[in-house]
């Protein structure tokens, strides 16, 4: 990401880690699922299809194939999680929306154009872990910026409004002073 001269990164906002942790738990469950299934199913089922000596290695091979695809899937999810980000600088808010491995949308709004920042926190999990939906309304006529499951939304809201106030104060010096 390239910034203009005099532009500094102030804040990087992502979805809360618990969002990815849910995927991680799912992948971990997926990794142990074949072992559980092998324990439940009768051993004769495999030896009837495969010769006795190769049943073990073939099962292990298939398990590695399953792990390989889980690994690729997990990193695809991590890529979407990590690259889906809001970057707040002292001049702009940049919304990088990573929709897929080859689908990416970037929108930016000048910090002075921020009109309001709304946060929505629903449910026990969001309240306990301090995450929620963050929406920035801008005056530029462009669509609102929206990030769901953002970490520490109240803190982010305060910081964005503080940066906005500084930017406005720099742009329009008080004529009474």
């Amino acid at each position: 990401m390239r910034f203009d001269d005099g532009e500094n990164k102030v804040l990087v906002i992502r979805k809360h880690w618990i969002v990815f942790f849910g995927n991680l738990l799912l992948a971990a469950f997926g990794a142990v699922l074949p072992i559980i299934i092998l324990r439940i199913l009768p051993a004769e089922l495999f030896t009837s299809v495969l010769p006795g000596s190769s049943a073990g290695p073939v099962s292990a091979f298939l398990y590695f194939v399953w792990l390989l695809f889980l690994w690729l899937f997990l990193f695809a999810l991590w890529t979407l999680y990590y690259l889906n980000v809001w970057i707040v600088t002292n001049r702009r808010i940049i919304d990088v929306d990573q929709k897929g491995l080859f689908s990416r949308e970037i929108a930016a709004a000048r910090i002075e154009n921020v009109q309001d920042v709304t946060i929505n926190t629903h449910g026990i999990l969001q309240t306990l872990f301090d995450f929620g939906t963050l929406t920035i309304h801008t005056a530029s006529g462009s669509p609102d910026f929206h990030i769901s499951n953002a970490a520490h939304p109240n803190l982010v809201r305060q910081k964005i409004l503080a940066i906005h106030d500084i930017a406005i104060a720099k742009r329009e010096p008080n004529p009474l002073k």
Partner: protein
Amino acid sequence: MPAADISTIVWVVFIICIVIVIPTTLAFFYHWGRFAPSHFGAIATIAIYTVGLSIILLGMLGIVLTI
């Protein structure tokens, strides 16, 4: 099923896996190299991904060679 047939099938599956892994890995590296907002995040992710992938592929290769 004869052991020779099983060996052939396993080799074919292994090669298909490699064919899927190569472009996916290149896509990952491209994204992390170009779009990652921090170098540390990109390097750590690529390192963990590569180590995990190597372990899985070497494990697969080890089994393929023994069948």
